[in-house]
């Protein structure tokens, strides 16, 4: 027994070391990136990182807890409007706007979750969709506050400051670094969450909720917590997108946004955190390259999605896993 445990520990250390090198390399590339690409490519990277945060947040719900939300844009858009409203009316200081976004989306997630989590399956999907569409119609109709279908424009890039010391992330490069910092923090934080006992409990709920109840878990609370965590990170992503484009738009709340992030998850591979990041990259970048070759790029995107659902339901991460296992099998048979 001790042999198994120690062998396992050694394998873990080896894997962790290899992963550390990989991550260090990736961070290094990300740090020098603004200096080797054109501004347009830098903008694409900013968008990909923001949508990666959004997609990772949905993965907590959909991939880990098994709650298929079709209204995740609600929190993305809420974060967008909260930061726009606060920036226009009060300040662009992140030390104020970030807490407003976090507290506002957490509160909204508590309220929406309280009703949605009483249901499951298709009903959960419908309730979350309805919640997001409700916010969308408020954003369209209540134009004195939300700017109606134009949204809120002229949102300043964020600053961070205490007293006389202040720095504004005005340039594209400085804003890129801010987004990168948010992305790295989100990845690290959510990875900690899914590796924790709480994170395993979420997987347990996905696999078999009835058994979790029989083991003494108050599953409602766990699902609520997952819903709030997912909502807050989606809100932060929406905040960053608004600060980047200097604009909060009602489309951020629309069901197509919820659909797009769900497609990112499915293409990347759910329940992996890394998969959604890859999915966000593919779904945001593909149209840019495709549109230089064809006007029908949306058709190609749709076909890509259908092919993944049919032939690679576990997404890019599933394909990678299969590829690696085949490699290992070949190594073993060569021994």
């Amino acid at each position, binding site marked *: *027994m001790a042999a*198994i*445990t120690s062998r*396992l520990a050694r394998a*873990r250390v080896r894997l962790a070391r290899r992963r550390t090198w990989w991550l260090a390399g990736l961070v290094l590339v990300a740090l020098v990136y603004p200096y080797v690409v054109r501004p347009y490519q830098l903008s694409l990277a900013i968008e990909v990182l923001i949508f990666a945060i959004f997609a990772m947040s949905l993965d907590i719900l959909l991939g880990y807890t098994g709650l298929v939300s079709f209204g995740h844009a609600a929190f993305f858009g809420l974060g967008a409007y909260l930061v726009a409203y606060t920036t226009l009316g009060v300040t662009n200081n992140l030390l104020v706007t970030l807490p407003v976004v976090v507290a506002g989306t957490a509160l909204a997630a508590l309220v929406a979750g309280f009703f949605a989590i009483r249901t499951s399956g298709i009903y959960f999907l419908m309730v979350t969709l309805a919640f997001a569409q409700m916010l969308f119609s408020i954003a369209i109709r209540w134009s004195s506050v939300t700017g109606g279908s134009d949204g809120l424009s002229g949102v300043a890039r964020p600053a961070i400051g205490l007293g006389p010391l202040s720095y504004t992330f005005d340039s594209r490069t400085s804003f890129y670094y801010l987004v990168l910092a948010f992305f790295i923090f989100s990845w690290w*934080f959510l990875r*900690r*969450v899914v*590796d*924790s*006992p*709480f*994170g*395993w*409990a979420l*997987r*347990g709920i996905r*696999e*078999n909720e*009835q*058994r*979790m*109840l*029989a*083991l*003494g*878990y*108050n*599953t409602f609370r766990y699902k609520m*917590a997952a819903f709030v965590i997912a909502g807050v990170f989606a809100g932060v992503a929406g905040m960053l997108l608004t600060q980047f484009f200097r604009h909060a738009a009602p489309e951020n709340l629309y069901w197509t946004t919820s659909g797009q992030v769900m497609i990112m998850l499915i293409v990347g591979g759910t329940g992996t955190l890394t998969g959604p990041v890859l999915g966000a990259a593919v779904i945001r970048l593909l149209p840019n390259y495709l549109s230089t070759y064809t006007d029908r790029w949306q058709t190609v995107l749709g076909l890509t999605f259908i092919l993944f659902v049919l032939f690679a339901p576990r997404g890019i991460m599933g394909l990678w896993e299969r590829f690696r296992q085949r490699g290992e099998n070949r190594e073993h048979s060569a021994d």
Partner: protein
Amino acid sequence: MSILRTERLSRNFGGLMAVNNVSIAVEAGERRAIIGPNGAGKTTFFNLLSGELRPLSGHIFLDEREITPLPPHQRARLGIGRTFQRNNLFLGLTVYENIQLAVQQRLGLASRWLRPARTFEDLDREVVGLATTLGLEGRLFEPAGSLSYGEQRQLEIALALAMRPRVLLLDEPTAGMSPAETAKMVQMIAGLPRDVTLLIIEHDMDVVFSLADRITVLHYGQVIADGVPEEVKGNPKVLEVYLGEA
């Protein structure tokens, strides 16, 4: 004082009374077998005790405290553990992760949300220890879904034991097992400490008589006999139910 007691407990499915006015009292440390023909209401009775089903009427007491209105997870925390007649596992997770879910809940670690689970040494030690007790140490990192039926049955028991329940409800623990596996399982159950009170639903009479201190016989949802094995064996009503009317 009885650790678990029911008072005129009833539950219907439509017009059928699956459990009908059942009053039993189980002493702490007792091993109680619940037997009866198919459809006698044994599993329904367990589902009422664990909270999966709500009774139509009647009361359930744990340590003379009424638990009738409590949901399953609260009863589990008060010390009622159970296994299921059909394996009810986390099939996509490994054996290790299955047991981990049960152990971390009991250790009060389940709501720790920012520290990796594998860094809790007491958790790891208990998971490996339990897997070894149940003979699953060689399969720790296999998905539960890839285990044989008998191994899944063992894992089912491991999950319940991991909770360290005071009252353990075993729903046909040896169903579908080979004679060799059955013998091992009976030995394991017989070796459980006496601070666990056992209620066992079982069809195999050899298993019943080798484990039970007392036997309750259900028929059409009603208790038709309740006593030590010798009494029940000689009870004419029980013979009639099992052998048919002569």
